[in-house]
């Protein structure tokens, strides 16, 4: 990946990044880029390598090979400078437990050239995060909101959220995503988010990457992704078995299941004309194509036979 090119189009990315822990391969030659202004959602099951990649991107871990690129430069080498323009919400809240929120804000505000003190204070007030008691005594949701407030304090160009909703209740999750949407709308901040909360990010993600066993198996705009995946249900006359199989294969059938109630197929190359031909095939009864949620697509890609979604 060319740095100059990346700097122009990508805020973050990975160039053949491999991460090994002894014999364990956490990330296998992953290459992707996060375009400026996008909301990139990196999905994967537990142990798929998401957090390792995020640590590499944040310059906290050196890849075994390849380079993580942050704001166009090698993240390992330029972490300190890059962090002026990057906000991070970690998987586990890591603000020292003895600190109060006010102390954490004061500490962070000294480290950045620009700091949106008013915005941070407003955000903490809005989410009723106590500022005078130690962080260790805050609820998980409050810690998450504090982390988000601290991450947005320096008005970052890139916001990295490593499974930020882990352990949050539904309300807290919604608040967090609403906050992100507001912020995105205000600033056009690029966001890289790893999460298991597929439903939560579905509404904000512009691009999706899916990791499976350390390999990047999907990297695509959300719009095209959702457009090409469909769940098709249909009935079938006995003699039409060969015909339907051929048609579904042409649409990239990922999975086909059947029973007395009929058949269901997930296809990854859905097209209206192709579906029209399938529907008009003799022997196909009451065909119906239904759009799939991100979670359904994820399950289809990672596959229940491969263990399902965690």
């Amino acid at each position, binding site marked *: 990946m060319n740095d100059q090119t990346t700097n122009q189009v990508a805020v973050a990315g990975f160039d053949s990044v491999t991460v090994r822990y002894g014999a364990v391969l956490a990330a296998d030659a992953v290459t992707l880029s996060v375009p400026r202004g996008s909301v990139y959602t990196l999905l994967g099951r537990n142990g798929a390598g998401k957090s390792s990649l995020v640590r590499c991107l944040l310059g906290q871990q*050196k890849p075994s090979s390849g380079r993580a690129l942050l704001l166009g430069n090698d993240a390992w080498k330029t972490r300190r400078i890059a962090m002026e323009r990057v906000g991070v919400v970690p998987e586990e809240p*890591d603000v020292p437990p003895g600190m109060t929120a006010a102390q954490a804000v004061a500490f962070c505000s000294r480290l950045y050239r620009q700091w949106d003190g008013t915005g941070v204070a407003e955000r903490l007030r809005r989410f009723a995060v106590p500022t005078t008691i130690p962080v260790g005594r805050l609820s998980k949701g409050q810690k998450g909101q504090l982390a988000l407030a601290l991450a947005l304090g320096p008005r970052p160009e890139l916001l990295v959220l490593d499974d930020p909703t882990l352990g949050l209740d539904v309300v807290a999750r919604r608040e967090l995503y609403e906050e992100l949407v507001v912020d995105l709308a205000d600033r056009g901040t690029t966001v890289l988010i790893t999460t298991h909360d597929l439903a939560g990010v579905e509404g904000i993600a512009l691009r999706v990457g899916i990791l499976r066993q350390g390999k990047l198996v999907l990297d695509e705009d959300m719009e095209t992704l959702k457009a090409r995946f469909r769940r098709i249900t249909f009935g079938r006359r006995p003699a039409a078995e060969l015909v339907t199989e051929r048609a579904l294969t042409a649409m990239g059938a990922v999975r086909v299941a059947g029973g007395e109630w009929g058949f269901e197929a997930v296809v990854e190359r859905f097209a209206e004309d192709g579906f029209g031909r399938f529907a008009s095939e003799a022997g196909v009864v009451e065909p119906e194509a239904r759009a799939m949620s991100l979670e359904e697509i994820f399950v289809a890609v990672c596959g229940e036979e491969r263990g399902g979604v965690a």
Partner: protein
Amino acid sequence: MRGLLAVAQREVVDRRMWLLAALAAGLIPMAAPLLPWVDAGSVAEARSMLASVLAATLTAAGTLALGLSMVGSDLAERRLGFYFARPLSAGAIWWGKLAASFLIVVLVGVLAALPTALVGGNLVLRDLVGLTADGAVLAGGSVVFVLLVLALAHALGVMGRSRSVWIVLDLVAAVAVGGAIWAVGRRFMLAGPMTLMTWLLASSLTVVLAALLAAGWVQVAVGRTDPRRGHMALSATLWGTLGSFALAVVGYAAWVFAAIPSSLECLWEVMPASSGSWSLVSGSSAGRGDYYPVFLLDAATGRWVSLEPTPHWWWFTPMFSADGRRAVWLQPTGLDPSDTRQVVLAELSEPQPRPVATSLILGRSARNARLSPSGQRLAVLAEKTISVYSLPEAALVRASRLDAHSSQISIRFATDDELVVSVWPETGPSTATAVDATLWRFDVRSGKLERTGTLDASRYRDDWGIPADPLGELRLAFHPRGSEMELAMHDARTGALKASLLSQPDQPLLGATFLADGRIVVGESRTAAGEPARVHLFGRDGRLLRSVAMPDGKIGGFGSEVAPDVLAVRLGTLESWAGRGGNTVLVDLEAGTVRRLAAGHVPIPSVSWWSPGRTPATPGSAASRLFRTPEGGLALYDPASDSFTTILDTRWPRT
């Protein structure tokens, strides 16, 4: 710097409980009057002691606890990412946390002692400062110590928390590096170069501290939030640095101990055997600091034997047999100079002489050792017991305890079977008083130790600056007689006065020596009458045989007979004997003539105060013809050609 200060400030705030605890602990000594075992008169003392103990304990505990946790706990609890997700350099994180921990430790000590200090308590710490008389050294040492413990505790904390197999490497490396440094340090301590040891200790401390601090930094910079990677980085830096240092130290030590005679740049000591061509030479060597290599050097062939120097080597200086074919010395077996010592010998007649340790191990107090003329027996004085050992058999021959009130005892072999023992009063002798010495005879064959006489009113110990009678029958002694100093000849066994040889004003001092055939040479430097200095030759009956006037100056001391009846005499004063340069004349005692040697050549004294009991060198032997060159080197004089052959090209010591 902004980031470092922010981190440091945060750490101080985060660990403020230590400061509060220290302040609270500092108030505890105020309750000293309530303690049942403290009476009214010792309240202040008890308060001071309590405050000192509390301050020291809290400081030590704080240093250890903060060192273990300043980075380690954040790393273990996965909170270090909080710092790395900010625009903070690894240096700001590490040095900021270290600086804060250091500050807290200092404040803990101060706060714990403050209340007592405010009420006028005399803290033990203050006494310590007074004792060392150098508060800056104590403060500097404390800073180094605190930093060392902080960094060490941090390293141990990271090693322990990473739970990686690298800890095995750490243990192996620690043993290897520590063992290497200890081995070198021990050898230096045995050899006694204090300056080198001080440098070794100081540089070891400095390198260890620097390595620990650097390793902590690298661990944070390279390991970042990964404990195992951090452990690897820390270990690689720490052991890489310390290993390199240990290798350098071992290499340097090997080089230091591999000195050869030509390595000597400045000779401190040259002591030839009475016969033959071997000498003890010792001096300084460039780059070896105050490590002074010691060699037995054969002036005739250039062969040499390296000896292990010791811190108190004059106690154990090698002794030569009368024929110069054997050298024997005592080698301390431990670091403490009062440890046991092993008898080591070198057969100098062998083609390649080498030190051979015998199985004779002498006791802690064995210092005063003498070798018999044949080199077969060794007499050792320990406490007040005289023991004679057979070297070929490595066995005790005889031992007897001397019934004397004084421990000021000297021994010398008259023959292989007879020892003459002199006992001086505990308080003397000194240069200011004259004292009586009792004389004893120890018969080695019978083991009988008997008192034989008294040496009256002697000013110097008989083995102080005058060689022994080669025939073992006479001894010379100085006696204060009013304002005069008399040199007298006595019977070696009974102390009976046999003849008064010369008397002159106390200053300048008389110089005297035996010749190899037993005659006596005395130097007289009269100044009052303006007469020239003279060398007097006396027979063994005390009769003056000849007087030879010196061309100018005074007599500085005697060398040896470079040929039969040709004595090397250094002009100058006794006080300048150890100095550089000067003129030497050869006095023909038979013809009464004097011939100058080339300027600047100085004869090697035939005796020195740390080589008692030696007999004069055999005339014409290599030992008798050793001279210091004008530059300070060592040369062999050839009377036939009146020329010098340089043996060691060294320099005079810089003064």
